[in-house]
């Protein structure tokens, strides 16, 4: 068993000639096929340019499976697709059938150089590196390291003016005590009687005179108003006092990653976030019952003003939206 023989490499199989290599008729046929493919391509370009110039943008045609299609865009696209696709197919078919198809062997050499060259190279690197004295002169090495690292700091420091410091901005919203709740969109104030049990409303804080609402405001202020039967609540007395007549208000900005949580399931009284499926129980102050969110949605204390419209009793008592390092969650 000491001379186990492995299978031997039989070498490259003999080249099999194509039909077109020895049959002039087959070669002519292949040539015609390539030409037809190129002509298809040319036809595609004609179709594309014609569609661009002559088909008005408002013509809609019905195509089975696809439905109603805007003709100009469809034919322009199909034309470009034909033009490029068949150009490519023609070239490939040409290469396959008519260009030389004998496989060529190219030698490959190991990347490692001859021992002599390699030793010389290693020696040079060692010698020249040594001559620079990087290994010996530690003072130079360290100061160079320091200078290099410091130089890289400048571009980072210069990014400072990209934006302001967050300060308390992540902690605050536009809600103040007495701010009226208005519909989004529509900006109409809401009375408790406007909402039946089981109803929801998307609300924003009413604008003060001369104020404009920015997306930054909406991103923190959006609130969802839900009316339940008061006896369905399962809240402590403080949170219960934040509701009014069965109406409870939560920040709509998810405590996980800030999507708008407004998917209210009326029967189960659950709020679901469509981004990552965190589920909050409305009856228990938006306690998280499923999904990746770790905190309940902040609840907005509400009451009514002298005219009977719903208002915020106080600002949010905690920051709304996703967590951040400085957030004091107790």
């Amino acid at each position, binding site marked *: 068993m000491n001379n186990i023989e492995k299978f031997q490499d039989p070498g490259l199989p003999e080249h*099999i000639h*194509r*039909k*077109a290599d020895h049959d002039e008729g087959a070669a002519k046929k292949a040539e015609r096929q390539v030409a037809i493919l190129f002509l298809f391509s040319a036809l595609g370009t004609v179709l594309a340019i014609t569609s661009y110039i002559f088909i008005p*943008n*408002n*013509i*809609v*045609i*019905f195509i089975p*499976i*696809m*439905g*109603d*299609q*805007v003709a100009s*865009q*469809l034919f322009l*696209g199909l034309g470009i697709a034909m033009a490029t696709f068949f150009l490519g197919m023609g070239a*490939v078919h040409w290469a*396959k*059938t008519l260009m030389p*198809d004998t496989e060529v062997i190219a030698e490959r050499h190991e990347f490692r150089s001859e021992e002599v060259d390699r030793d010389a190279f290693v020696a040079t690197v060692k010698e020249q590196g040594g001559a620079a004295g990087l290994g010996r002169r530690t003072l130079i090495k360290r100061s160079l390291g320091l200078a290099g690292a410091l130089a890289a700091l400048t571009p980072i420091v210069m990014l400072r003016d990209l934006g302001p410091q967050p300060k308390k901005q992540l902690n605050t919203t536009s809600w103040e005590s007495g701010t009226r709740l208005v*519909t*989004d*969109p*529509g900006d*109409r104030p*809401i*009375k408790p009687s*406007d*909402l*039946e049990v*089981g*109803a*929801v*409303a*998307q609300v924003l804080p009413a604008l003060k005179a001369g104020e404009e609402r920015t997306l930054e405001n909406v991103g923190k202020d959006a609130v969802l108003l*839900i009316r339940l039967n008061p006896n369905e609540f399962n809240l402590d007395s403080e949170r219960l006092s934040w509701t009014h007549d069965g109406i409870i208000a939560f920040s709509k900005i998810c405590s996980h990653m800030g999507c*708008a949580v*407004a*998917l*209210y*399931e*009326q*029967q*189960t009284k*659950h709020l*679901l976030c*469509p981004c990552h*499926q965190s*589920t909050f129980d409305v009856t228990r102050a938006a306690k998280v019952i*499923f999904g990746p969110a770790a905190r309940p949605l902040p609840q907005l204390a509400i009451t009514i003003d002298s005219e009977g419209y719903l208002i915020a009793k106080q600002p949010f008592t905690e920051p709304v939206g996703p967590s951040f390092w400085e957030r004091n969650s107790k």
Partner: protein
Amino acid sequence: MTFSSPLSTVSKYRRHKYAGPVLVVAALLTIGSAFSIASALPSATKMTAAATTTQIAEGKKIFAAGCSSCHGLNAEGSSIAPALIGVGGASVDFQVGTGRMPMADMSQQAQRKRPVYNAEQTAALAAYVSSLAPGPSAVDGANLNYERDGNTAQGGELFRTNCAMCHNFAAQGGALSQGKYAPTLMGVEPKYMYEAMITGPQSMPKFSDKTITPAEKLSIIKWIKAAQNEPSLGGATTGRVGPVTEGLLAWLLGLGSLIGIAVWLATKAR
């Protein structure tokens, strides 16, 4: 460049396909246009005066036969089904008219199917339930002139704020928790959309007339219909459900066909 929207011309190209439904809707709209929206809509939330005692009696009979086993003999509800006192005719019209009630099985949620009762029987049931306690009454589709009274752009904004989170950005429907789902709104009759908004069927909350006015509700319906009837701009839709199906298509059709061609490219010609 003069350019008119593809949307403005769409109706004439849909004649062959939607001729039937369009004619019906058009006929209904003609009849309905006699009433102005201002007078028609508030009446939708009051009891229909037209409910005759015979209709109520008829409805009570149907109720006893088909509904009472779950909802109780006097619609007082039970452990498996809610009370129907005060839900109004709109709710009955929606649930029975769309075939959701009676439920086929006690699954997660009632599904839309072929209605069990015809329009007359549904009206009778609605009349009976309305007679128990006042509630929003059934909406007459003919009165919903959303094409005239709605505003598409405003409807879109309202839809995205109030509806898209469940029904998806193009009203194709979406998932809720525990196997429940918000159905697609494609092809849903305007009156059922309207009734759903005012009654809040199943998982869906109610949208009060004060927070979303009747006119705004019509705008929402108009936008949904516009999205439904819009030609598939830019090619066949991949379900209008976002990037998931697009990614699938890129792999299967895009890379799949290119790999097929690469195999052809790398095989020797004979």
